[in-house]
């Protein structure tokens, strides 16, 4: 890890730890936005990590920003930070001044529920290949609801019209949906890392029939399966991130294929990871008293967000079918 990333993660972990205290989640479940924590995060520059230095950003690379996304998953951060990070970058790339405050983001992936519809400043609209822009939140028609994670969400009723002076041409890099798929995969990977940690702690500490659950072979095998899925999602996430990074630097392409594969794999793995985690935690894991649900409930939201596994599998499959039998291996091997 670079020194810069270690420093960034230090700040990130400190801020996220504070932003995920029990009382914050109690408030979130009651629909209260943790505005002071958002402010602290914004003031420390985390929402701007992907902005070029000239635009007031930290000048860190995409991988560093995605380490923040992974941490957001590992802490179950109940704030629209990742959408804001990507949204601000998309606007900056289009030569637009990003509005202050949290953002919602609309990409070409099937319309995702917008987190915190009453708190966001604007909706970034990046669902078309040739234009990107933003609309003030007051001008967006959102139908109120709640996510499985208990956060307020808004479903977009109709695509908003973008004022001409808030619209521009997107940068040449990866598309908004590929960036968000990659970022969401990193969040899923982080949450899975946490769920594995919680599960190991639980099976080592919980004693039944006179011995810790971890001593039962059936339990060991289930944890191994969960760990395998979590680890593979982790490397899928890192590999997609590296591909996006290379594409942003004008390097080899294939980033679209890799981002699609990564989100498909991550969303798909949410079922096995949450199923095993809850099975091994037993009844206590099925309560709001236990921390496990902060992470499993978010996985159930995030696997659908920014395109569920079916959507991305369809993308991957259409690329594979188009490549044909002879082109299939070169597509996978990237050469």
């Amino acid at each position, binding site marked *: 890890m670079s020194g810069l990333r270690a420093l960034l993660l230090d700040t990130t972990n400190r801020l996220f730890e504070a932003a995920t205290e029990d009382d914050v989640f109690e408030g979130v479940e009651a629909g209260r936005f943790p505005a002071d924590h958002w402010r602290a995060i914004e003031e420390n520059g985390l929402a701007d990590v992907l902005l070029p230095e000239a635009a007031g950003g930290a000048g860190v690379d995409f991988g560093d920003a995605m380490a923040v996304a992974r941490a957001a998953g590992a802490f179950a951060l109940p704030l629209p930070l990742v959408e804001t990070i990507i949204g601000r970058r998309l606007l900056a790339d289009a030569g637009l001044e990003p509005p202050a405050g949290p953002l919602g983001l609309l990409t070409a992936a099937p319309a995702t529920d917008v987190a915190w519809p009453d708190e966001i400043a604007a909706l970034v609209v990046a669902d078309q290949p040739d234009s990107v822009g933003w609309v003030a939140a007051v001008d967006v028609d959102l139908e109120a609801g709640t996510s499985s994670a208990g956060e307020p969400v808004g479903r977009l009723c109709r695509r908003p019209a973008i004022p001409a002076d808030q619209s521009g041409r997107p940068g040449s890099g990866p598309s908004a949906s590929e960036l968000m798929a990659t970022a969401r995969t990193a969040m899923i990977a982080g949450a899975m890392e946490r769920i594995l940690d919680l599960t190991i702690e639980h099976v080592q500490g919980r004693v039944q029939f006179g011995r810790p659950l971890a001593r039962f072979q059936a339990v060991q095998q289930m944890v191994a399966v969960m760990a395998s899925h979590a680890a593979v999602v982790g*490397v899928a996430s890192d590999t997609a991130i590296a591909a996006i990074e290379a594409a942003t630097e004008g390097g080899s392409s294939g980033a679209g294929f890799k981002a699609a594969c990564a989100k498909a794999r991550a969303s798909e793995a949410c079922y096995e990871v949450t199923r095993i985690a809850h099975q091994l935690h037993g009844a206590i894991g099925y309560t709001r008293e236990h921390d496990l649900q902060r992470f499993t409930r978010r996985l159930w939201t995030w696997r659908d967000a920014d395109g569920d596994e079916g959507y991305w599998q369809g993308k991957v499959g259409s690329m594979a*079918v188009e490549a*044909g039998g002879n082109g299939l291996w070169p597509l996978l091997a990237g050469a």
Partner: protein
Amino acid sequence: MKAPAVHLRFSPSVLPEAAENLRSEVRHLLEDTRARGVWLAEGLSWWGRNPELSRALGEAGFIGMTWPGRYGGAERSQLERYVVTEELLAAGAPAAFHWFADRQIGPSILRYGSEAQKRRFLPPIARGELSFAVGMSEPDSGSDLASIRMRAERVDGGWRLNGSKIWTSYAHVAEYCVALVRTEPKSDKRHAGMSQVIIDLKNANGITVRPIIDLPGRHDFNEVFFEDTFVPDDYLLGNPGDGWSQVTSELAYERSGPERFLTNFHLLRALVDALDGSASPAAQREVGLLVSRLWALRAASISVASALEAGETPNVESALVKDLGTNFQQEVPEIVRRLVAAEEIDDRNLLDVLRQVVLAAPSYTIQGGATEILRGIVARGLRLR
């Protein structure tokens, strides 16, 4: 809540330029030999055995390619070897003639063998002229390998072998076998007293080979009986008593390689061919499910290969890749079956490959470490046992 402890993490890795550059060379050789009728894809993938193709690969420097030049190697990296291996698998090329010697026997000889053994065996292996079988399991010792009973007793000038080995693929045609045997009686130390011996299958005395026909109806497996078989002193591999650590040290290579998820790539390829550029949205999703899983497994496998190249011993990670990879491979034919029905695909080639793969699929999660054993290794890595 603090940041979570990280229990298992694959470092993302990309194959170096030098390795990527080899791809076109391997593809060219495979296309050329195929066009000349040296081999044809038979639905067996690498389990097929074709001495002529192995010789061509040896001549091109693609066998023993990481070994020193003085033993016939090409002094290339593990990652370059990785690329060659996956290109062979992706093409469905029959590679069993040299596979075991290239993957594990050769590296063991290189690491533990005497100078004379290295000079004698490695160059012909690298030329694709010498085929080895692996003698590990016994009739009463499958997953519990440490319970083997085959004995090697000290006699004048060498060792006398008694016992049997089973599931010894291609023992009926291979020139040599490397077997794990007991050179000391069983003791409280489960893993002590074992050694590896090289056996000349064509010339040694007292060897009987019984064929075992597998589910697809092929004769790869054998049970091999040894009755007072004599092997000379200089056919003991490594130090007497070190057999267990010698065989386990190569497991990461055996388990994390691309054969753990590309063995039936030819089925996926045949499916995509049969779809012929057009598929319903549902079919595209099924294809995408398989391809995205394969892609993620490959990323994990490349990470393990890079760790191996860096001198690490990622045994937990490689057990994990083998578990997920072989389970994936078992699902491939089931998903293809669904698609064949749903899309009403009538493609002779696809259906032939599918039938063979269904018959071969149960072996994936048994050979080279059964699923339950692998998950036990992962659980130990997570400190649950």
